[in-house]
């Protein structure tokens, strides 16, 4: 049980080489579940190795329970880690694997036996204790790897993409199980993944990383609803957010985004009012689930008629693709209302949910205004989605 704080952490593999980690700042409270997410090569695994002490940082400080551990060796940091490859000791039985860390720490044998029994029961691996790792399935190996971490009762757990070697079904199962486990044990956890669904479902806090820089640090809800820039917006969400590059136009003092489907045009009045925006190239971001079918009676939201180019039924939803401003735009619709290819449909957008990005820098534009508008419209949108 511990707090974790990273203060301006830097890491480089040598002078002249690009920084692997740049000014990493984040802190989590006791018992929180932190997700480090990003594409491969973004530095998330390096950051985790630095927290574990397997690699040294070249600047800043890593604080566990307000104590600077940056100079300590891994064994003194009281951290346990689950590796992507599980890293089970192949010549030892499951029991010996779990015991190893405890024996090294000179724990009494009776206490070790007790601890192994507790962990084995918790993870339901009692019947596997005398087997070798090679005789276990992937899912069982994953449990043993977790058992080894749990047995030490460390201050912090580190998980390095622990589910990525499992098949899709097992991955979903283990994901739920890990969440249950964390709710029960309430141990501070850092979890590295490139899977944005794991990031959204498991984390109390999410740090989205790219090129060694934290792009955004916040709750999953903040990251999803209020991304700091184009990268975060595109990385989180599946299917990904639609991006339409355009020029805004000012009409009656309000900024409008004009969408053109080929057969109709529609003007989206935006919550953003910043002066001078209409002279810049901007990118409009709309999540597929925030595009709705227009109801029969008018409700005041802007509507646009468009032709369906492709449909992809996924089961619970049908993804419908239309062409807007020469960009393929994905809409997530309920399967029973989804039209056929070639048909036209009336789409609606909630202007308050539409995000605006700078086309050059990728930074989010007009954050404050959009936020306040979003809060007041939240219920309204939920209603429409339900239809």
């Amino acid at each position, binding site marked *: 049980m511990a707090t974790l704080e990273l203060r301006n952490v830097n890491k480089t593999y040598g002078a002249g080489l690009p920084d692997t980690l740049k000014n990493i700042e984040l802190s989590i409270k006791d018992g929180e579940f932190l997700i480090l997410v990003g594409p491969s090569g973004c530095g998330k695994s390096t950051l985790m*190795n630095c927290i*574990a002490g*397997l690699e040294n940082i070249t600047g800043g400080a890593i604080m566990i329970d307000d104590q600077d551990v940056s100079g300590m*060796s*891994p*064994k003194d940091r009281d*951290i*346990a*880690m689950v*590796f*992507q*490859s*599980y*890293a089970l*000791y*192949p*010549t*030892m039985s499951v029991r010996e694997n779990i015991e*190893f*860390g405890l024996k*090294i*720490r000179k724990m009494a044998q009776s206490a070790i036996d007790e601890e192994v029994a507790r962990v084995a029961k918790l993870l339901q691996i009692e019947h596997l204790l005398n087997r070798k790792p090679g005789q276990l399935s992937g899912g069982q190996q994953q449990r043993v790897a977790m058992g*080894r971490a749990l047995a*030490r009762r460390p201050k912090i757990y580190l998980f390095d993409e622990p589910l990525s070697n499992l098949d899709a079904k097992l991955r979903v199962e283990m994901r739920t199980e890990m969440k249950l486990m964390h709710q029960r044990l309430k141990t501070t956890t850092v979890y590295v993944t490139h899977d944005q669904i794991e990031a959204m479902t498991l984390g109390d806090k999410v740090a989205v990383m790219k090129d060694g820089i934290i792009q955004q640090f916040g709750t999953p809800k903040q990251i999803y609803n209020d991304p700091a820039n184009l990268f975060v917006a595109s990385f989180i969400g599946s299917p990904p957010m639609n991006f339409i590059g355009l020029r805004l136009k000012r009409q009656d003092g309000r900024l409008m985004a004009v969408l053109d489907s080929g057969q109709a045009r529609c003007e989206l009045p935006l919550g953003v009012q910043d002066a001078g925006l209409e002279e810049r190239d901007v990118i409009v971001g709309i999540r597929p689930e925030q595009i709705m079918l227009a109801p029969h009676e008018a409700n005041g939201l802007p509507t646009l008629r468009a032709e369906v180019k492709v449909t992809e039924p996924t089961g619970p939803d049908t993804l419908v693709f239309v062409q807007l401003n020469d960009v393929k735009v994905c809409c997530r619709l309920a399967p029973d209302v989804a039209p056929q290819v070639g048909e036209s449909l009336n789409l609606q957008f909630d202007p308050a949910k539409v995000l605006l990005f700078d086309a050059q820098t990728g930074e989010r534009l007009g954050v404050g205004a959009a936020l306040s508008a979003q809060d007041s419209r939240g219920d309204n949108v939920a209603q429409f989605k339900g239809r």
Partner: protein
Amino acid sequence: MTSLAGKSAISLSRIAIYAVLIFAVLLYLVPLVVMLLTSFKTPEDISTGNLLSWPAVVTGIGWVKAWATVDGYFWNSIKITVPAVLVSTAIGALNGYVLSMWRFRGSQLFFGLLLFGCFLPFQTVLLPASFTLGKMGLASTTTGLVFVHIVYGLAFTTLFFRNYYVSIPDALVKAARLDGAGFFTIFRMIILPMSTPIIMVCLIWQFTQIWNDFLFGVVFSSGDSQPITVALNNLVNTSTGVKEYNVDMAAAMIAGLPTLLVYVVAGKYFVRGLTAGAVKG
């Protein structure tokens, strides 16, 4: 298998292949057969009969005489080979462990230079080695010869272990470090237990090399401390008296038996271990 497939299996090409293979086997076996037959013949039998003829009288006198001649040198070879093999394998394992799992600045270069040791001919190290042994006060001692064998063998044993260990995932060492284990604990408890195949390869390789070595033996030892290869040479090359080919052959067989035994006992590891780590790294 159906009868049809069975018939087609014994085709003309099959027969040709087997014929060639059997011929090759016979060709390779002829020297061994000649040696075995000759070692059980009497000297008169050897001078009158031909090489491949069956002994007129089967006698073990050649073997008894041979053993009496090489007896002491056989044990010399054991005393040289066993410690040299064990020590060079142990140090090679430790070297390989460091070079694959605890890389340091310049470790790749170090390994590259070490590899040169595998390509150095014996002859080139004779003078430096004898100079060093002289300085150390180990000239013409069994310890000195063992030392030379260990140093010369390290390049090979390090190469074997390093290439085996690079295929072991780093995560194992990381996990053990987080579990609190140190450098030697990780080596002893995690890495060594996984190393059986490559240890066997190393033992066989080093045993064969050192047991069969003649050059180091003849240069760095003298008199009663010489290995069996040198003794065998002295016996066969003697220019006085009548040539006792039966004794020569029996002595040669005795000199070759231990390596043969090692291959029979541990040979299955050899092919397996040599190819381990060959794909990766």
